[in-house]
């Protein structure tokens, strides 16, 4: 085994994912470059990858969120942008981890709608979601309806 010397030590990398009809990754990138101070910003098909010192990245992310707060989502990334162990330019095919992101992108419009609605309503007035751990018995009327549907 060979020795491993890490690069970008002490840096923080974040994904900024945009799901909006009004903002594109290019708009976000332009705004990001305006306020970046030596921070690495990479534009992607789904948003941006921002890498640099924690405080600087946090500052840019806070500013970018203001553009469209209900449609911009942020999460941490372990690897810096373009890392040969993760970048699809070296590996080919989808980047490992993209499948999860792709799946959540199908759910994000509902979450964005929820965030928009919560700007108008109080969270305490909204009924709770069903507990997924509770498995309710099949309602007798629902069963009857299913039997009727099968027979007809």
């Amino acid at each position, binding site marked *: *085994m060979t020795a491993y010397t890490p690069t970008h030590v002490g840096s923080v990398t974040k994904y900024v994912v945009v799901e909006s009809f009004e903002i594109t990754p290019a708009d976000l990138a332009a705004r990001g470059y305006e306020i970046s101070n030596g921070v690495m910003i990479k534009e992607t098909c789904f948003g941006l990858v921002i890498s640099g010192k924690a405080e600087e990245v946090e500052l840019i992310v806070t500013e970018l969120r203001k553009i469209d707060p209900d449609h911009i989502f942020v999460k941490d990334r372990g690897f810096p942008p373009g890392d040969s162990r993760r970048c699809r330019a070296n590996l080919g095919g989808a980047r490992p981890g993209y499948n999860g992101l792709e799946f959540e992108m199908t759910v994000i419009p509902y979450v964005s*709608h*929820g965030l928009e609605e919560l700007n108008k309503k109080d969270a305490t007035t909204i009924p709770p979601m069903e507990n997924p751990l509770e498995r309710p018995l099949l309602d007798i009327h629902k069963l009857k309806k299913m039997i009727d549907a099968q027979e007809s």
Partner: protein
Amino acid sequence: MAKVFIYPATSLILSDMVARFGHTPLSSATAIRERIQTAGLESPPLQITPEEPKKGLKWAAVEVPAGVRGRMSLYGPMIEASEAAIIINDADMAFGCMGCARTNELIKFLLHQKEMPRLELNYPKNEEEGVKFVAAIKRFLTELGGAK
């Protein structure tokens, strides 16, 4: 500001929600970042060295496959550090590129064993559920207190 473990640990939605409402999400990215920024022996792609399955023995028995123990060396310390957890139960995407299904079962088991506030959810399937989903997370995180 509470440390909130999120499951799936790679979830963009949960990671964003926890940070948005003023707490610290504990996700796999932070654990991976710690490893790839630490000097040691070259072990691509995730810098999981043969030492990791040994560390994983704290959470999984020796007869458990090394893959599970190696992954537990990432998630185990985060579960111990967590003060609350948000779990999405129908996260089928957690199986696959994120890792082993047995690790996921063990993570959920450990989160249920630990006495701490826990929120159980499913992914929203329409806009109405989306509102309930966000409201449930917001209520839960507000009740934790100490938001940034």
